[in-house]
């Protein structure tokens, strides 16, 4: 029983996909203009993630290793198409708000990352729980950022006026606000977290994801925290001299 809870906790807090692993930043930045959009996007991604983890985990002994990535992509794309059609049919207003970002769940690093790092090695039940944990972590991060942006940008949360009208700083619901709010949330998390523990988490979290996701290099929290000058830069200079 404990290992099931551990999975949920892991996704929600310890390896929060957005705030700790820095995966799936594109939809996170794009749709967090309102708290409600954050929930909508988070839950759509959660649904796709749970089902894709389940299907991939069930098929993990059937899919040959060499063609596993194309196979995963087809599975995820089919699930995303189903989700898209369902949202279009039953939640048209959400569909309007999220627009292009619903089909783009296909290329969300979190989904392929979890398939590769977790679902293809573990049992269906554990994989589903991993999907739920990660999906909830994603939803929580998006809702938090959405609420902050909505409050600062328009003075509302979930459409309820909290600050007097006219106090909204429009910049926060515009694109720059997304970068700023996420930068500050991550900075606050860095400040709270114990550095060594976090470094360990970043290492174990990146395990296996790097080959899949372009954010592999954003593990730079690791290299930046070392007090030494960045080794990458030295390499680059050495390469140029050759």
């Amino acid at each position, binding site marked *: 029983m404990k290992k099931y809870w551990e999975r949920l906790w892991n996704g929600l807090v310890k390896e929060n996909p957005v705030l700790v692993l820095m995966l799936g930043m*594109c939809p996170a930045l794009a749709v967090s203009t309102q708290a409600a959009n954050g929930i909508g996007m988070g839950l759509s991604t959660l649904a796709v993630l749970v089902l894709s983890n389940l299907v991939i985990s069930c098929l993990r002994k059937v899919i040959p290793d060499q063609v596993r990535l*194309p196979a995963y992509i087809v599975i995820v*794309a089919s699930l995303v*198409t189903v989700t898209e059609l369902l949202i279009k049919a039953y939640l048209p207003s959400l569909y309007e708000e999220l627009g292009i970002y619903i089909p783009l769940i*296909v290329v969300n690093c979190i989904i392929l990352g979890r398939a590769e790092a977790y679902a293809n090695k573990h049992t269906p039940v554990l994989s589903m729980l991993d999907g739920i944990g990660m999906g909830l972590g994603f939803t929580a991060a998006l809702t938090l950022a959405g609420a902050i942006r909505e409050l600062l940008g328009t003075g509302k949360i979930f459409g309820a006026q909290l600050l007097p009208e006219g106090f909204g700083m429009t910049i926060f619901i515009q694109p720059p606000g997304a*970068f700023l709010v996420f930068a500050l949330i991550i900075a606050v998390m*860095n400040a709270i977290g114990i550095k060594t523990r976090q470094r360990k988490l970043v290492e174990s979290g990146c395990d296996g994801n790097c080959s899949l996701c*372009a954010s592999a290099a954003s593990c730079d929290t690791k290299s930046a925290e070392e007090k030494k000058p960045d080794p990458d830069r030295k390499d680059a200079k050495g*390469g140029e001299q050759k």
Partner: protein
Amino acid sequence: MKSLIMIIIAGALINNVVLNQFLGICSFLGVSKQMKASISLGGAVIFVITIASAVASLLYDYVLQPLGMDFMKTIIFILVIAALVQIVEMFLKKKSPAVYNALGIYLPLITTNCAVLGVALTNVQDGYNFIQCVASGFGTAVGYTIAIVLLAGIRSRINEKDLPAPLRGAPIVMIAAALMSIAFMGFGGLNL
């Protein structure tokens, strides 16, 4: 002709794919550590997005729509992009190993770059014809390259500064991106 130039400028500057639409953020934050790598990645992205939008446009107009299968576009496009990246990779490996080595790992990673799929899908949504699709793909990719190269330049300076510990790494890069995004909002005033 004039409208094509407008599409390119709008794609590159006004609706900058990274700073305005948040597509391709993963590689934008991940690869912009080094100037050289960013330029290589930018080149590869221009190449792949232009070809991918051309192929996606042809497929949509002549295969998916006549068959009434528009709802399959996400699956078809992502497969086409993955296959295309593979073909480009094999072609470059054979014909110009120098370029292939320069692009290195970034070429296969483009498959999961949401900018590629995003452009293909928005083109179709906007009802562009073949030529317009290619122009918009090219413009968007140029915008991506501009953004990532600029950020790489800024980051090479950030690395030399003594920052407060919590801001090191991702947060300061995102703050820099926020300032760039504010600057790019200025292009919104362009009257095309």
